[in-house]
């Protein structure tokens, strides 16, 4: 009785076979073919992949900009604003989609294909990776035949075949069974647009054949590894990751965080990528979920948008570029990246060159870049991780997020409909947006409740204070000022950073009470009533406050002790001098902002000033403005401008400055000098 053949494969495509490699590079086999619009349903997106290792660059590249799909690609395929005549007069075309054959088991990407098996007779050769894919060739002895050397029983054997037609068969994974997924690694936006059009208007794609190139690295197998004597053989994931990153150039104009992440011309891009990569590796997707790295709107990219976020690529980029860019920061950069470790490699052995191998934030050579990437990962990223995951306030924010996530996952496990919870969890952990349709309304509610619960829990707590972008920039500013002040010491930046985090913990103790809007000195400098001022000056004010602590209560001594034996009393004095200077700067800022605020608002300040006082001040100001205009018109000299208006302003402002100084001294336990105090002693006695 003839046995019925079992058909293991359910997707078949016929096309031309090819192999791509150069020299000894790892070969990639491919089949050029075409798909109908319906065939596209067999393709998956890269965001559906779960690689065998955590990899931020892959995660970053697989993000799909749905807005761009609807805004640009869909109208290209199916324009709604063209007349029938206009449509007839245009031609459109897409380059081939690049599709990877990815081995999958239990929904997880597998590192290798099953070992290749050959089956042949006099006419046909089957190459098969059992349970995943099979290729059928026609054998040919002609002069145009293509020669393949294939591994059979541990040795290479030569086969001559026709390159076309060749039939590729795939077994799609079903449930947790193994199989091969067809994953688009280039053309995700095209695929999303084609699927959208096919869903909404299938007749528009009737008869269309889309060019597709199906790729797979045939040697990513255990047998090939054995054949190579056990040396490492590239995994399927590493091959496609590399191809994916290489071929994806379409996101370069996406904007927001991607402009930073994809930039290679500044250290910002390198630092942010390495930081995210390190967090993903050390803390997994739960850690990375608290770093905002995929905001596309420029406006939102420099603030935090999620209630559970710790920081954002945009904040890091803005803060670090501001403090580290420019030639004058090259020594600091060299210290922060410990460039003496790699400097001998910078000069390419050209000892006679007078050109300095100086590295700047936005100025370095391609040759230097590979060393810089390693130094960023080795020295700078651990410092950033120490600040954003080591400082008590951020550590607590991380713990609260993990607790809330655990609860969400438990709710999911207890739920009858896990799909909705899973969609919410995927949005939190993998940035896979919940579909904007009615089927996912519950998922959106779950997500919003998750955010709202965390937001409620953090309200008024120090965690929410350190979530302000401007506070984070103040923290980073203070950190960099300290590094700059200590960059001549033979101490690693991470050692200084750890001491700095202790200083931060002290500064933000008692739920950040030093920085609360209720403090007299915080009004006008950092807060306006209960609203934080998102200005550069606010960043400096916060930084000044943090550094002031160095001039109080033996903190300079503690800090210096943490640096080890390379630091001594002179370093203590240096830090006290820095703290004292910053205290003076801060009160100077308070004075300036209070004065500015008073001049802007005195006309409506009915609580502090009587009608007569306001009228008097208004007259003085009018006269002052008139005289200033005369200076501009060259009718009066600057020194002849009456100082009466500003003197009267100082009288009112001076009282507040004195109060602010008293509160500042009391809160910080600061007993050092504040140069500006002397001015207001006079004001008070008038």
């Amino acid at each position, binding site marked *: 009785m003839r046995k019925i053949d079992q058909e293991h494969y359910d997707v078949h495509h016929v096309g031309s076979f090819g192999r791509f490699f150069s020299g000894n590079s790892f070969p990639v086999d491919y089949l050029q073919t075409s798909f109908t619009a319906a065939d596209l349903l067999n393709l998956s997106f890269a965001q559906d992949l779960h690689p065998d290792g955590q990899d931020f660059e892959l995660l970053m590249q697989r993000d799909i900009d749905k807005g761009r799909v609807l805004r640009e690609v869909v109208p290209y395929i199916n324009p709604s604003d063209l007349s029938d005549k206009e449509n007839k007069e245009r031609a459109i075309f897409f380059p081939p989609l690049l599709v990877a054959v990815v081995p999958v088991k239990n929904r997880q990407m597998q590192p290798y294909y099953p070992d290749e098996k050959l089956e042949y007779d006099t006419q046909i050769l089957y190459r098969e990776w059992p349970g995943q894919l099979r290729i059928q060739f026609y054998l040919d002895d002609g002069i145009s035949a293509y020669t393949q050397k294939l591994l059979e029983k541990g040795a290479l054997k030569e086969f001559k075949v026709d390159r076309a037609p060749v039939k590729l068969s795939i077994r799609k994974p079903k449930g947790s069974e193994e199989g091969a997924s067809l994953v688009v690694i280039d053309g995700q936006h095209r695929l999303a647009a084609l699927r959208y059009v096919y869903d909404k208007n299938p007749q528009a794609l009737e008869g269309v054949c889309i060019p597709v190139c199906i790729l797979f690295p045939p040697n990513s197998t255990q047998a090939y590894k054995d054949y190579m004597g056990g040396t490492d053989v590239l995994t399927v994931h590493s091959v496609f990751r590399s191809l994916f990153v290489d071929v994806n150039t379409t996101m370069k104009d996406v904007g927001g965080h991607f402009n930073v992440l994809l930039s290679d011309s500044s250290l910002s891009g390198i630092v942010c990528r390495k930081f995210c990569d390190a967090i993903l590796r050390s803390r997994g997707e739960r850690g990375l979920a608290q770093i905002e790295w995929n905001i596309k709107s420029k406006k939102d990219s420099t603030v935090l948008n999620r209630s559970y976020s710790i920081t954002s690529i945009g904040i890091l980029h803005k803060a670090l570029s501001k403090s580290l860019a*420019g*030639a*004058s920061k*090259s*020594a600091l950069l*060299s*210290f922060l990246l*410990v460039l*003496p*470790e790699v*400097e*001998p490699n910078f*000069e390419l052995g050209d*000892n006679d060159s*007078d*050109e*300095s*191998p*100086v590295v700047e934030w936005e100025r370095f050579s391609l040759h230097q870049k590979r060393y810089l990437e390693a130094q960023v990962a080795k020295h700078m990223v651990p410092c950033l991780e120490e600040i954003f995951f080591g400082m008590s306030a951020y550590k607590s924010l991380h713990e609260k997020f993990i607790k809330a996530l655990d609860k969400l996952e438990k709710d999911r496990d207890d739920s009858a409909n896990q799909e909705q919870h899973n969609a919410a969890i995927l949005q939190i952990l993998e940035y896979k947006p919940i579909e904007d349709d009615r089927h996912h309304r519950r998922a959106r509610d779950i997500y919003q409740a998750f955010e709202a619960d965390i937001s409620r829990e953090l309200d008024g707590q120090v965690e929410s204070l350190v979530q302000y972008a401007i506070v984070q920039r103040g923290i980073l500013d203070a950190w960099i000022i300290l590094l700059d*002040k*200590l*960059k*001549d*010491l*033979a*101490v*690693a930046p991470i*050692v200084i950073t750890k001491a700095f985090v202790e200083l931060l913990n002290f500064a933000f103790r008692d739920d950040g009470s030093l920085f609360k809007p209720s403090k007299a000195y915080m009004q006008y400098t950092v807060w306006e009533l209960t609203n934080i001022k998102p200005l550069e000056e606010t960043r400096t004010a916060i930084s000044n406050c943090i550094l002031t602590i160095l001039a109080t209560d033996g903190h300079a001594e503690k800090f210096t002790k943490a640096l*080890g*034996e*390379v630091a*001594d009393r*002179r370093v203590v*004095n*240096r830090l006290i*001098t820095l703290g*004292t*200077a910053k205290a*003076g*700067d801060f009160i100077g800022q308070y004075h300036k902002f209070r004065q500015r605020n008073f001049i802007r608002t005195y006309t409506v300040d009915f609580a502090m000033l009587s009608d007569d006082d306001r009228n008097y001040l208004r007259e003085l100001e009018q006269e002052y403005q008139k005289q200033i205009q005369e200076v501009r018109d060259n009718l009066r000299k600057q020194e002849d401008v009456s100082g009466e208006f500003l003197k009267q302003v100082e009288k009112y402002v001076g009282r507040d400055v004195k109060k602010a100084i008293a509160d500042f001294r009391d809160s910080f336990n600061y007993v*050092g*000098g504040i*140069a500006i105090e002397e001015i207001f002693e006079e004001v008070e006695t008038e």
Partner: protein
Amino acid sequence: MGQHKRRMGASIIGLSILLLSKDEALQVFSPPYEDEIPREPGVYGFFLLLGSRQRIGLLGAEPFSSDVLANAQKNLERRLLKAEKVFSSKMLEGSLRERGKGLSLLESYDVVMMQRNITDILSILNGTDAMSIPVIVDFVEKVSLMAGPVYCGMTYDQTLLQRYGQHKSDFYRRARDDESSFGSRFSKTGFIWDDLIFSCVPLNCSRTDIRAIEKLMHMLLKAPFSKF
């Protein structure tokens, strides 16, 4: 911050300060202390920091691994070679005539001569044990002020702090063909601004006196980057 200015206490790590008298001390400032440079006129000089543990990558406490020491040795060699170039960067130019011939002979030779140091720094360091590099670099750092200034000058209308800032600004402008300022000339040596140690003596005397003192400094100290 003026009232907190430290007039006497500034120093760089490992270097001592020479105090002449309370009011007219030779003051020494490394870049971390540059804010404390006197806001008054005087004479000044820039010294080259010949080496330091930080500059050659010896961070933290000993012992250092052999890789770190080997790298530090390379860095120190490169640094001292560059320093040697700074101190031996004199160029002579002029015309030569055959000795003993009358002035009526018109033939002469235009020559440009570059200073060369016969001593080979590399061969000195090659003979040392890498374990000794921390000791050597500490010594090299300490003798930085004994090497003589690479530049000296005076201020009268500007304060010493303002003049320092001007040199620093020239350094970072790095105009390729600008040979007019010390900052721009020094930027071409491969050293960074933070490799300079500023020393000064504030002087409260007439412009003529300060000029005379500056000339004496040029004559006696022969700073390679000073233009007389």
